[in-house]
């Protein structure tokens, strides 16, 4: 009896052990699968989520957003506010203080110079920086004392937590990247594939579009972390295989972005090996309607290139056409078939937080095929040559509709094609491998940034809780083009002076209510231009194996934001 009690006590003690006596590298190997493989480790050179998240293991920023969307200090000692004097009274500057004794993984100290350099790197006039919108309105970055960094804004900045906050805007080491400014940025392969960072892990080997191996950072600021000694970050495959490898076979510990039909995912989870976790943030599955001409007959300098309105799309710039396309869609049905509990229909590209969510467009929630037909008739689009497709002035309403390869997206495509055929719009479907589509390779014709199609569908979101930088995506200046190596977030090439003015206004408005109003106005302006047709406000489902502890899903930042705290649950 006594021995038994003792044994049970011993078992109980080991059960509590991992959390209590965690030390660096004690939990061995962590296997992560991202079915879209990262192509670079430098988030400034890619707009893709996979690159940003892979890089977030290594590169860090001053502050990050936790799973409930709150800002938490990361490399900074605390969050500067007006109250603690970190933000200037007139909102024209913010002063961060770096944590004491902060070192890069190569042992050298992190200084204000690195932040100044990162700003210079991303705002270099010749370079295409994918995250330039995080530095919008930043006039200069300067050192204050030993560990202080002051960011000066061109005008009062009510939400100053954009530059160096969140996974999209990390800090690069000056010593490593100083030769890589401007057009030479993509050429620094060694640096781009193995950046030196402050994060819990360092890159051991990087194989683009395949696999990354990380080892624990010897110089990480918390001596007890990370619990894992090595991380294998596997890319490639598809969402179904990734989900299966965690939920059914248990080969991997964590799988990202499992966009699978709800019935498929829940059946896999029933195997009992792992858990599906979903984070709701601002992700919206949407259609982008190309506002520039994507005619294959045009040369590379012209195709899908915005030329001050000269090179407009033959019909998608007409809001009536876009409206009809939107009205024909039954969002509730798409939700039911492809997303289930993981999504809800939406009519806004900015669906959350509540303060910023507009209600002006909610009419789109109800499908109205007849209304769409009437609208097109009224706009003069009629089937004059009897081929079943509406036309006007010899232009047929025929679109090429592309998206990434994913069963849910292909089902959605088929549904939308069916509805559009009912309003006399001919649709050709195309799907591109996700690694290529989101790969950001300027040489590939199939990336979502190049947009060599009329309409494309994917999901995007923004990190953090403030939509200012996100709404600045649709500035005229942020249109991808050959000049900026096709970087830029204004994918549909929307350009309006009034919109730019609103962005400008928001960047100088401090009052939260007014900011909400402005965000709604901007959202409504894009919605009513029908250059974006939102479909589903979706959660981001990921899955982790049941023996992996510490996962706190966040859609406000990188999903791997707290990977340093992850540990193995022994059983």
């Amino acid at each position, binding site marked *: 009896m006594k021995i038994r009690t003792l044994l049970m006590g011993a078992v109980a003690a080991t059960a509590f052990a991992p959390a209590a006596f965690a030390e660096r590298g004690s939990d061995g190997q962590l296997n992560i699968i991202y079915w879209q493989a990262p192509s670079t480790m430098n988030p400034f050179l890619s707009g893709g989520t996979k690159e940003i998240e892979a890089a977030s293991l290594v590169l860090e920023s001053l502050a990050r957003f936790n799973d409930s969307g709150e800002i938490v200090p990361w490399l900074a000692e605390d969050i500067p506010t007006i109250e603690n004097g970190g933000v200037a009274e007139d909102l024209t500057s913010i002063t961060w203080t770096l944590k004491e004794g902060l070192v890069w993984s190569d042992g050298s100290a992190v200084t204000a110079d690195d932040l100044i350099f990162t700003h210079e790197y991303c705002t270099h006039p010749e370079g295409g920086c994918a995250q330039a919108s995080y530095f919008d309105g930043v006039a200069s970055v300067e050192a204050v004392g030993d560990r202080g960094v002051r960011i000066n804004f061109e005008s009062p900045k009510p939400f100053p937590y954009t530059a160096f906050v969140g996974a999209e805007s990390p800090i690069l080491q000056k010593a490593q990247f100083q030769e890589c400014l401007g057009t030479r940025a993509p050429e620094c392969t060694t640096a781009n594939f193995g950046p030196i960072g402050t994060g819990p892990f360092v890159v051991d080997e990087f194989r683009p579009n395949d696999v990354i191996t990380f080892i624990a950072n010897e110089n990480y600021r918390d001596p007890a972390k990370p619990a894992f000694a090595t991380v294998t970050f596997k890319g490639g495959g598809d969402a179904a295989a990734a989900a299966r490898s965690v939920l059914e076979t248990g080969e991997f510990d964590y799988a990202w972005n499992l966009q699978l039909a709800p019935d*498929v995912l829940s*059946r896999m989870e029933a195997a009992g090996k792992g858990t599906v976790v979903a984070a709701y943030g601002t992700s919206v599955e949407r259609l982008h309607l190309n506002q520039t001409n994507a005619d294959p007959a045009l040369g590379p300098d012209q195709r899908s290139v915005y030329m001050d309105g000269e090179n407009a799309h033959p019909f998608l710039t007409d809001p009536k056409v876009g409206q009809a396309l939107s009205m024909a869609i039954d969002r509730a049905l798409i939700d039911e078939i492809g997303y289930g509990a993981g999504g809800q229909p939406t009519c806004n590209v900015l669906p959350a937080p509540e303060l910023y969510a507009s209600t002006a467009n909610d009419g789109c929630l109800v499908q109205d095929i007849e209304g769409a037909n009437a609208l097109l008739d009224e706009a003069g689009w009629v089937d004059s040559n009897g081929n079943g497709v509406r036309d006007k002035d010899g232009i047929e309403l025929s679109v090429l509709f592309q998206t990434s390869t994913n069963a849910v997206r292909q089902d959605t*495509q088929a*549904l939308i094609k069916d509805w559009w055929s009912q309003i006399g719009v001919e649709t050709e479907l195309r799907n591109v491998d996700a690694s290529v589509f989101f790969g950001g390779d300027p040489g590939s014709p199939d990336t979502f940034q190049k947009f060599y199609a009329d309409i494309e569908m994917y999901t995007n979101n923004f990190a953090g809780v403030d939509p200012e930088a996100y709404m600045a995506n649709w500035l005229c200046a942020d249109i991808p083009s050959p000049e900026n190596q096709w970087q830029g977030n204004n994918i549909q090439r929307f350009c309006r002076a009034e919109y730019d003015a609103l962005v400008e206004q928001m960047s100088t408005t401090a009052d939260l209510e007014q900011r909400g109003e402005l965000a709604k106005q901007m959202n409504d302006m894009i919605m009513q231009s029908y250059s974006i047709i939102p479909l589903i406000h979706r959660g981001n489902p990921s899955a982790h194996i049941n023996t992996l502890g510490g996962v706190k899903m966040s859609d406000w930042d990188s999903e791997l934001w707290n990977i340093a705290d992850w540990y193995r649950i022994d059983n």
Partner: protein
Amino acid sequence: MTDQNAEIETFGALKDKEPQKEPRSQWRDVWDQFRKHKGALIGGGFLLFITLFVLIGPLVWQVDPKALDIRNKDLRPVYTLLWDSQANVLWSRPFGTDNLGRDIMATLIAGGQASLAVGWAAMILSLVIGTMVGVTAGYFKRLDGILMRITDLFLSLPILPLLLVAVTLFRQPLRATFGPEGGMFILIVGIIGITSWMPTARIVRGEILALKEREFVLAARSIGTTPFLIIRRHLLPNVISPIMVSATLGLATAIITESALSFLGVGFPSDFPTWGKLLSDAVPRMEEFPERVMLPGILISLTVLSVNYLGDGLRDALDPRIRGR
């Protein structure tokens, strides 16, 4: 008695024999031999059935394979009623529907059209190229070296990466000229055709090398027959049996390659059904709806198997040395 017998013997040897049976054509012999091969007979019959199924099928089964019918999605095939009387079935959808309510019977027919068309076209293309290269290399000694090195070169090309590159390079121009589906068809057929002719070329060359040293070719040359005529009249008919075999194998390979491409998501547009694509789309729901994987999978397997048997039978039947044994 003995004298008389000897007389008759001599006489009989000199006399023209009356044919005991009706004269038989060569193709009659081929058919008789072919009939003895049970597998080939069944294989041929099945291939004929499949071809008729996809050609005449749409006339009989007039359901649009692309039409969505969400209210009737996820129907099971009617045969599930045998063991599950609660199954969600509809008699107007004998093989059930997929998760968007598309009729599986109709998509199988449409998918078969695409898969078989790709198979036949690619097979014929590779056959023509392979035979031409093989005959030329075997007959004309001067061209032999260079043609065989080119064959080696093509043999070393990996087909899938090549196809992926070709899709990126040529999709746009072909799409502009022939439309999305036509363009892709030409591309896939072209690539499969030009990467699968090499075995045929090698086999044909080997046969030709042996044949052209035979006496009947020498005889033909001695009376001044031109090389072209020798090839046409004397050589090609003698290599028809290996050509037929590689043709049947080629058809099977082409169908499988097309399926692999659809499975990888390159190739035809996502709503254009082919057997391979139906199969790959169904994989995530394999446990719940096994029929969606089984039906196209069985069709692909049976078609390929029957083609292989057919080839085996044809080889036996067409080779005069084996025939009759």
